[in-house]
């Protein structure tokens, strides 16, 4: 546990002080408020948080796909040392889908309903590499085979509505793998699916990334999912990362009361028959974030100081930290 985290060597992606705001008539609200994040080559990082915590906006910010009224106003996204935020749009486009791929939440909405699966997969190749359509098609067939879609050649001629939700998400995964990217950002890719399909997709995704050495940023609200998948976990609340560490540390010995609360509400990690915990209240809207620590209004460990000073992210070793004045008692990781 005290070994230096693997990303200390040479991170594939390093995010520093990322801040994304949404402009409205009443002012600008930060959906992502100073996020630091680092992903090593081949590493699986889980980014966990409730709806509205800013985790999806973080994902889109890394791809520079934040649409107005949203705007990335500060920070660096260093990908292999290059700051993506200062690249010209054409250079960013060349990276999207090629070096960094993304899988979206709702497979029903993300595939274009009037274009064939084949066209939508092939364009992901031909827009990046000077290969012919035939070569791209062959690669698409291979990729579909890897995610367990039978008779791929015929499937390529079909339209999205001829696929089930799970199948469509497999298509999205195959598409993401087409150019053997260094990093895949997966934004709640299993949330819209049946639980049984969820498990399969999770397993396939893990297998594929491991085989190809692709790093994975898995964005989810479901701690149960990251528990199976992630090497490291970042917990997000109200636009900030409130706790980070290896999966074992965070899951077995959470220090931030919010992480502890989230863990208490996951059925799969609690003893059967025990009562599930529930975090009181709801996440504060961005426009009415409390002073000091944003979690203090829902926190069981709240102290007077919490209303005044927003605690910084701090911890015993690099790669392990939490933002809390009064953390949960230390426990040994199992």
């Amino acid at each position, binding site marked *: 546990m005290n070994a230096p985290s693997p990303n200390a060597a040479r991170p594939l992606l390093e995010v520093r002080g990322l801040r994304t705001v949404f402009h409205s008539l009443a002012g600008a609200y930060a959906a992502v408020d100073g996020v630091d994040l680092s992903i090593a080559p081949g590493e699986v990082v889980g980014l966990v948080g409730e709806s509205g915590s800013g985790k999806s906006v973080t994902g889109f910010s890394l*791809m520079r*796909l934040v*649409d107005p009224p949203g705007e990335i106003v500060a920070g660096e996204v260093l990908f292999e040392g290059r700051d993506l935020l200062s690249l010209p749009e054409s250079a960013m486009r060349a990276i*999207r889908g090629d070096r960094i791929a*993304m899988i979206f939440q709702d497979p029903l909405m*993300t595939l274009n309903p009037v274009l064939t699966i084949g066209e*939508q997969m092939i364009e*992901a190749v031909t827009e*990046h590499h000077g290969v012919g359509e035939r070569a791209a098609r062959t690669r698409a067939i291979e990729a579909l085979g890897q995610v367990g879609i039978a008779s791929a050649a015929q499937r390529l001629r079909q339209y999205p509505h001829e696929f089930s939700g799970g199948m469509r998400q497999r298509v999205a995964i195959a598409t993401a793998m087409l150019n053997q990217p260094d990093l895949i950002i997966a934004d709640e890719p299993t949330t819209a699916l049946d639980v049984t399909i969820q498990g399969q997709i999770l397993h396939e995704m893990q297998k594929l990334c491991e085989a190809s050495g692709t790093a994975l940023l898995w964005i989810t609200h479901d701690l149960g999912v990251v528990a199976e998948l992630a090497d490291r976990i970042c917990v997000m609340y109200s636009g900030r990362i409130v706790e980070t560490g290896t999966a074992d540390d965070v899951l077995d010995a959470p220090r931030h009361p919010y992480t502890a609360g989230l863990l208490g509400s996951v059925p799969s990690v609690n003893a059967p028959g025990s009562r599930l915990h529930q975090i009181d209240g709801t996440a504060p809207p961005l426009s009415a974030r409390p002073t000091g620590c944003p979690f203090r209004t829902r926190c069981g460990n709240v102290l007077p100081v919490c209303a005044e000073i927003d605690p910084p992210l701090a911890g015993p070793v690099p790669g392990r930290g939490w933002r809390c004045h009064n953390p949960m008692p230390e426990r040994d990781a199992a």
Partner: protein
Amino acid sequence: MTLFILRRVIQSVFVLLAVSLVVFFAVYAIGDPVELLVSPDTSAAEREVMIRRLGLDLPIWRQYLVFLGNLAQGDLGTSFVHGVPAVELILQRLPATLELVVLSLVIAVSIGLPLGMIAGLAPETRTARTIMTGSIFGYSLPAFWQGMMLIFVFAVFLNWAPAAGRGDTVSLLGVEVSFLTADGWSHLILPAINLALPNLALVLRLAASGTAEARLQDYVKYARAKGVRRGRIVRRHILRNILVPVVTVIGVEFGSLIAYSTITETVFAWPGMGKLLIDSVYQLDRPVVVAYVMIATFIFVTVNLLVDLAYAMLDPRVELEKGAS
């Protein structure tokens, strides 16, 4: 598919029958053509002969049955005024009208679709607002007024194009057409623009709203996340999605343009079907009016069927077998 087409054809027959009934009785109510056909100094006996020859001595319902009987044999009646079969008269004029309608639709789509997409892609910009404001003139100014203004500016004032007539024609597969001669083009262009303007505005606004909606869809963001270039996103992902409403409108408008071209054809003295209709109404030439409406309806119904078939090609989710009409 075959079942779908068959069902639609049967429906169309009923539509045509209903239309024929309405138009036949409506034309009867307009007035007595005999008054216009015979000169005031004709004797009563000659009058009687003429009335009998035209079949106007029978009660209206008998006249209608006779009409239906002839219709079943492909005969839509003979013009009172010209003494030739009404269908022949109309079909002679059909190429002129079709030429005008097709060119006007080409203008409407080739200008309206790109302008609309430009406006829809960046709705907040000044360009977009200018385009959208301009489009309001397209459909809110009356067609006859637009026609007269076009004549006034381009024919009278600037003298760029002639104001009336069809110009030189050449025979293409036995049909006289204007669009293959320079003189024909110069005659064709003003009426075609006149006819195109409302549809240009309509296509433009449809394309703009469709594009504005489509560009915010997840599939566009997903295509961007795949690194697809903007040009391709617009041409494949967005354009394909907005084509269904545009094709619908073009189809429906094709039918109504054939009807509305009456105004343009009258203003520009274009010798098409519409001009013939107006002339025939003035002369109470019943068979021509009835035949015109029947043929216009037939074109309408046929085009609608083609539009439905085009849907299935443009939107793979459309299943023709299940959709009733």
